[in-house]
């Protein structure tokens, strides 16, 4: 082996010089420049489309930093630990407001919004303001508003003579009829990183909750919560296999490819499912309706992206200017045309309404949902709670654990988290 004569030192030298040359092009940050931290979503694509116009108007250069959705909060927390101003404008999820606020990462953007005549804060409904608020401070303004609604296949409903369900009982009976006819009945994801969201919304639709907001006692064993979970688990057999171990994107993929009668999912997916190019098989066969409810409850979870300003940014004024430009009254139509799902703000005129009816025909459904929607629990333990509930529900859906043992485990796991943080006694 040692006798190999190596004559390709040149390769090494070449590689080295490539490295040297490319490392020299390190660019310094110009004074008139902001960094916008976004994830992969239709609303961030629209935000990106607003960049050049803003630069042309103000001379401020806009750089976009894109990270995967699952990494958004981690990256923001990590960056904020270093107290650096690498990110000026930041996109984040409402469920992470607590974590980001506790770590002191966010500027109180609500103050800027309220003072801006261009942004017209009065047209943002109160539920949406509350959605970005933690401990009395408004840390994010809506970039998109995406409550869970019912999606169904018009053609399959017509073929099987199904009615749009008002209650979850009707949804379940529709699902059964679809399954009996050889179709999939439902695409609610049960994956280990997703189950808690939509099933959590169902629990609230039934009038249940994860835990009591004042005593922090878990309430998965309440009559309402148990009934909701039971119903969700009874739907597993009508669900495509990939959706049993997948998340929201996998459910959308199943809707695109397989014959699935109905699903509960966020409105924001319309940009994919309503698009002829991306969803050639179903784009014209889908309809949207209010999410089913039970027991007289109208409550559901509100989702959607928030956007705000990094506490440690040294470009806060420019950062706000960009948000004002992109989300303010002047460019409402440009922003929608760039593919952004609507934010649920009250609109200005008939031309905007017409445009909205075209790009987001579900606006009426969305407005109803917004009125009854609450943000995910605002406690610092929420990410850990969502993780154990995701996994607990996933274990139940994949029959790792029986229904009763699953309910007991959910209660015990969430209780353990509150015991650890001192909110409950062991």
């Amino acid at each position, binding site marked *: 082996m040692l006798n190999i004569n190596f004559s390709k030192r040149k390769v090494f030298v070449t590689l080295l010089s490539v490295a040297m040359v490319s490392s020299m092009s390190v660019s310094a940050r110009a004074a008139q420049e902001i960094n916008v931290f976004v994830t992969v979503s239709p609303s961030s694509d629209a935000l990106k489309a607003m960049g050049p116009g803003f630069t042309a108007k103000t001379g401020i250069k806009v750089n976009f930093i894109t990270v995967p959705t699952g990494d958004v909060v981690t990256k923001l927390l990590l960056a904020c630990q270093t107290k650096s101003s690498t990110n000026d404008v930041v996109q984040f999820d409402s469920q992470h407001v607590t974590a980001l606020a506790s770590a002191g990462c966010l500027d109180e953007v609500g103050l800027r919004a309220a003072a801006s005549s261009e942004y017209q804060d009065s047209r943002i409904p109160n539920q949406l303001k509350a959605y970005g608020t933690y401990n009395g401070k408004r840390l994010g303004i809506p970039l998109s508003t995406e409550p869970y609604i019912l999606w169904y296949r018009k053609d399959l409903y017509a073929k099987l003579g199904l009615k749009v369900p008002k209650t979850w009982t009707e949804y379940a009976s529709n699902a059964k009829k679809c399954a009996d006819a050889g179709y999939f009945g439902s695409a609610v994801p049960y994956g*280990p990183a997703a189950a808690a969201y939509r099933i959590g919304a169902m629990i609230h639709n039934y009038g249940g909750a994860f835990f009591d907001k004042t005593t922090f006692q878990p309430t998965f064993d309440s009559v309402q919560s148990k009934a909701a979970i039971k119903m969700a688990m009874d739907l597993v057999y009508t669900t495509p296999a990939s959706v049993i171990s997948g998340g929201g994107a996998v459910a959308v993929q199943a809707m695109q490819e397989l014959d699935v009668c109905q699903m509960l999912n966020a409105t924001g997916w319309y940009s994919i499912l309503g698009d002829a190019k991306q969803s050639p098989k179903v784009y014209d066969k889908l309809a949207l309706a209010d999410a089913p409810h039970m027991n007289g409850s109208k409550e559901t979870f509100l989702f959607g992206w928030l956007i705000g300003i990094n506490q440690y940014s040294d470009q806060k004024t420019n950062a706000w200017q960009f948000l004002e430009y992109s989300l303010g009254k002047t460019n409402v139509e440009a922003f929608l045309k760039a593919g952004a799902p609507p934010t649920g703000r009250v609109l200005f005129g008939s031309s905007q309404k017409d445009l909205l009816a075209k790009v987001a025909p579900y606006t009426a459904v969305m407005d109803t949902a917004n009125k009854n929607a609450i943000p995910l629990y605002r406690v610092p333990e929420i990410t850990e709670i969502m*993780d154990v509930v995701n996994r607990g529900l996933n274990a139940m859906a994949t029959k790792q654990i029986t229904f009763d043992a699953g309910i007991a485990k959910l209660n015990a796991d969430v209780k353990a988290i509150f015991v650890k943080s001192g909110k409950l006694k062991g």
Partner: protein
Amino acid sequence: MVTNEIRTVRRYSRSSGLAVLFSLPGLLLLISVVLAPLITGFYYSLTNSSLISSAPTKFVGLANYKSEVFTAKFGEALRVSLLITFFSILTQLLAGYVIAKVLARSMKGTSFFVSVIMLPMLLTPVAIGMMWSLMLNPDIGAIKWLQSFVGLDINFLSSSGTAMGAIIFLEWWGHLPFVVLVLMAGILNLPKEIIESASIDGANWWQLNLRVIIPMLAPVIAVIVIIRSVNAFRMFDTIFVLTSGGPGNATVNLPFLAYKAAFTYFDTSRASAISVAIVAIVMPVYFIFLKMTKV
């Protein structure tokens, strides 16, 4: 003359200034990237430090160990780590031995097959894991399609047994080349006379392999088992992209448990307690390693 030479050689071995110069870059790297974080990590494990709290950190004693290490969750993750390690190495040794024996025959085309078999070891694990996750999609994936030819329809990610099977298969797939190549080298280095005389003495195929060849390969197999067990025990990428620990917690291994505590719950101190426990668990392997690497 002889004593002179010995003196020269002694002088040669003694150049300690040069030794410091030679070992310094490596030592500095190890101190800053290994020793410093290990000590810091141990310190964190005794505090309540967290990414999402701006409150000052304080000592909490062994509370993190109590809540994170001496729990069923940790035990379960340890079991997953050990199962992955045991089964991936066992199957690699079995398949690797047969493949290495065939390759060692030096038939026509062996060199080509060596190149192909080498591939998984060189390809990006996270990319491979993602492609496998597409292929394993139970509704539209390629694996569902391939199964249909033999009348099967298994959803690998939906039960704990098959999900573990999928993880172990990927680990097997990715590191089979290492086992094959090392075993092949070992087989080629065996003294041919012994094998030939054994077969002349009338030993059948089984006797030849079990009684003669495998015992002679024992040191090579020991090296494989040690190196592979360390790697399989710390597997992360595949679980991260393929199952994210599911279904339920069925494929959460120890590194994934530590990762979740640190980067999903943002709890540095609890993650550190898990990390310290992991170091304690690998200690026996550490001592075997030290024994093997006498310099």
